[in-house]
């Protein structure tokens, strides 16, 4: 049975990815173009802003290391909100456990991120990689972010159909992740007490780790990943338990 569920996740996840690439003239090219445009906008806004000192190619890389992973998490949250209601048709015909649908969403968006990730690596190489860079250092960072995304995804997918009011909070939550995640500023330059608050954002530590390994060539500080990992794991547990508890209630409110 479980194997069958995995097959469903596989075909639906890949199907959504393929559908994503159809319907526009540029197709898959948008997966790369969109984060690049986002980086350009942030560069324009912040290279001369705030302290006015962040200019040049290193700031571009700095932004990319923040924005690319951010985009992955943000899309995951957005798409998970409607993961169950989008499959209303299927779910009113026969029983399927609901966790399948947010999981398929994660598969789609993770594969998409894996297409964007080489672009980040290529930019690092092009602009100037640190001498002692170890590409594999980002593996635990990506894995931690995947756990965090799964947690956010299950929790969002589980709660929104039951309490639709929360869908109003999603855009604000994503903006909050963006502004407090140290995506366009260096968190180390903030006062100590503010840093502590900013580190409550689980993305903050993750993005810092992307930067230490890709921009500074330092080994990933695994202890910095403990909090986002635990955060993701507990949200995933909460989400999965809620999905299970309301398993046969969702079809009533779709």
């Amino acid at each position, binding site marked *: 049975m479980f194997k069958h569920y995995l097959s469903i996740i596989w*075909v639906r996840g890949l*199907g959504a990815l393929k559908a994503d690439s*159809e319907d526009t003239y540029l197709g898959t090219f948008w997966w790369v173009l969109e984060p690049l445009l986002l980086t350009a906008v942030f560069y324009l806004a912040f290279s001369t802003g705030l302290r006015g000192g962040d200019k040049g190619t290193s700031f571009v890389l700095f932004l990319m290391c923040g924005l690319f992973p951010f985009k992955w998490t943000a899309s995951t949250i957005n798409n998970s909100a409607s993961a169950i209601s989008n499959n209303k*048709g299927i*779910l009113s015909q026969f*029983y399927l456990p609901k966790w399948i649908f947010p999981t398929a969403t994660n598969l789609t968006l993770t594969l998409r991120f894996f297409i964007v990730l080489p672009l980040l690596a290529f930019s690092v190489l092009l602009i100037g990689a640190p001498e002692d860079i170890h590409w594999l250092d980002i593996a635990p960072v990506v894995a931690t972010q995947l756990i965090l995304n799964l947690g956010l995804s299950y929790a969002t997918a589980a709660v929104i159909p039951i309490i639709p009011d929360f869908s109003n909070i999603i855009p604000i939550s994503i903006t909050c992740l963006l502004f407090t995640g140290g995506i366009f500023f260096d968190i180390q330059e903030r006062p100590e007490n503010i840093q502590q608050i900013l580190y409550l954002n689980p993305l903050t530590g993750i993005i810092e780790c992307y930067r230490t390994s890709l921009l500074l060539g330092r080994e990933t500080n695994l202890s910095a990943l403990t909090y986002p990992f635990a955060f993701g794991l507990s949200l995933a547990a909460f989400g999965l338990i809620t999905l299970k508890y309301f398993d*046969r209630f969702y079809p009533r409110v779709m």
Partner: protein
Amino acid sequence: MKELLLNFQNVGVAYRKRLSIFSSKQWVLRGLNFKLYRGETLGVIGRNGAGKSTLLKLFANIIEPDEGEIYRSPNTSSQLLALNLGFNRKLTGKENAIMALVTNGSSIREAKARIQEIMQFAELEHIASHPLKTYSAGQRARLGFSIAIQAKPDILLLDEILGVGDKNFKEKSKKLIKQKLNSEQTVILVSHSPKTINNLCSKAIWIENGNIRAAGCAKEVTTEYLKD
């Protein structure tokens, strides 16, 4: 004695009228008692708003009742035959078919092996690799039917007899459904039409205002329904 598949005991379903914690509950179905045995064809008749759709959801094991109990024979699958299989308009007919077949219970390998035969039956081979958004409504319905009819649940749920597509295909699809009805397949058929129920079902129940108004032999139930 035939195997008991479903046993409804005093089953009721209630919905909140509005999305508010102060909203009172409204009973859509209440006090339902009946049994379904393997191989039976049960007809469910009732007017609009009688609770038929909710009852179908209970049969399909999609929702749980708010009161009473439903016994289900272990490992019994039930499925509603429907044409809307959650198709993605951007994907091709073939891709949609594989996705729907796997979601419906096939393995990926099985789905790929059967795809040609299904497109052939749907008479859509020539446009199998076109995106679904280019299909006409009739073509989409034909694809939906051809996939849905592949499912082999223990209990097949039908919401009206589905005859889809143009005249030819309608005949073909109706014939296939009637074949299923006359086979060993356990079927629950929901319909407004006493004639359909009378022709195709052995037993029937009449649902009105969420209660069973009459139950028993299809002929008796439909005669009473017509008298009302």
